[in-house]
């Protein structure tokens, strides 16, 4: 079976999971305060950031800090629980498909859901920017090229985090620990982006990317900038190691 076919199968499995509803709700909740408090964007002279940039950055900062990692944890739960209910995973493991391929197919689904959530956020950003703009008589809308570049960066930087969440979901059988560790690991990222070792903590990556962009757009604000040298190798290493371990460990508890 080709890899793409397996990804398609995995997508079909969660077709009826109502996960889209949760993702949509999450993005709506994300942007409501931004629209209601749109007037606050005009009081950012101290930071030296233009209202439209601030509108964009604040919204995506709230997303990158908590709700995005948290919904990704929820999706790993979804993927695991649909397989465990009715022992679906045993049937999958009985098929002549390599377990590593299965594991990677599920990971690809997780990554594509992260992309979907970012795309939804962009869509919602344009909707709320239009609403806020008409409320405040100000043009909050930024060019799509810029938005897609920034959000694309956030998405790519979130892949190590996703691989770590996937490792937790595969290796830790008790859901209370895999979920608990996943959610709890999100909370300190707000502290970690201000330290020098941010590159060792994948949960902080997307938040770090957007805060460093905040520093670039706000003339009076200095936030740490992206340094590719310690970061890129470390992130790649984390991703590869996490994915390798999860491919090896995938299905081992069930086969015993």
């Amino acid at each position, binding site marked *: 079976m080709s890899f793409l076919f397996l990804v398609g199968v995995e997508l079909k499995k969660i077709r009826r999971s109502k996960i889209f509803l949760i993702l949509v709700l*999450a993005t709506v909740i994300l942007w409501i305060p931004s629209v209601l408090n749109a007037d606050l964007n005009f009081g950012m002279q101290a930071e030296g950031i233009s209202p439209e940039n601030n509108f964009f950055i604040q919204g995506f900062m709230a997303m990158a800090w908590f709700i995005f990692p948290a919904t990704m944890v*929820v999706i790993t739960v*979804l993927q695991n629980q649909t397989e465990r209910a009715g022992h679906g995973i045993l049937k999958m493991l009985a098929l002549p498909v390599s377990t590593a391929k299965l594991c990677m197919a599920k990971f690809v689904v997780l990554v594509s859901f992260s992309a979907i959530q970012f795309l939804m956020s962009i869509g919602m950003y344009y909707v709320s920017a239009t609403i806020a703009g008409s409320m405040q008589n100000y043009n909050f809308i930024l060019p799509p090229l810029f938005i897609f570049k920034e959000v694309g960066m956030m998405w790519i930087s979130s892949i190590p985090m996703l691989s770590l969440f996937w490792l937790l979901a595969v290796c830790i059988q008790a859901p209370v620990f895999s979920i608990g560790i996943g959610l709890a690991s999100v909370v300190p990222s707000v502290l970690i982006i201000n330290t020098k070792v941010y590159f060792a903590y994948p949960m902080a990556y997307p938040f770090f990317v957007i805060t460093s962009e905040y520093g670039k757009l706000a003339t009076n604000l200095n936030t740490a900038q992206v340094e590719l040298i310690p970061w890129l190798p470390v992130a790649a290493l984390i991703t590869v190691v996490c994915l390798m371990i999860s491919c090896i460990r995938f299905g081992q508890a069930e086969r015993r």
Partner: protein
Amino acid sequence: MSFGLELRKVKRTGFLPAFLGGGILAAAVPVLNMAFRSEIYVGINAAPVNILLNANWQIMSMFNILLVVVGACIMYNTEYAEGAIQKMCTLPTKESTMFFGKIAVLIAVSILLLLIETISVFGCSVHWFEVSADLYMETLKSFGFFLLLMLPTVFCALLIASLSKNMWIGLGIGVMCVFAATMIPSQNFVLTLFPFALPFQTLENHTADVIRNYAAAGAVETVLIALLEIMILKVRRSFE
């Protein structure tokens, strides 16, 4: 009886170690904060407990709420996962008895959680600040306030968990509620009455009147959510 039963059900899910671990993690926040940056806080002219809670409670309560949400989802997941709830429904007990049994367990572990955190805050006050006579009273009062405001969260989280047959839906809604709570401005009294936003409140940021209002609101919300759950269970039962 229900309490012991529910406790035994969660025994092998790793529920208790998770809460213990989470409590220790949350308790480590003020300790680490003081260990690395004590110079920022020692000079402030306020009661030690106030300084510590102002600096750390947002993150600590975030841990608490997330733990409660996950714990609630796990408790009902063990019922729904293998259809155990159907067997429970055939027994001569009410479904609401099970709910309150679970509530009792969740409250017990929340007390454990808050106890670990209170000990940590107290220890930090003794170690880094000068101890005054009313330190014990202040700490105890804070602990009681936090416990009372935690109740609506516990009830609401378990209500959401009890309504979702699939864990990810309960967890997803719970996580979204936590997220919404973090976005609520803490000055707006009406909005902070949202059950998941209440545990972020601390005693020292408010006057006695507001504190009394919060306490009353916490109690009222708890009762209301409990009544709502009983009603929902009754209605659901008659449609199944």
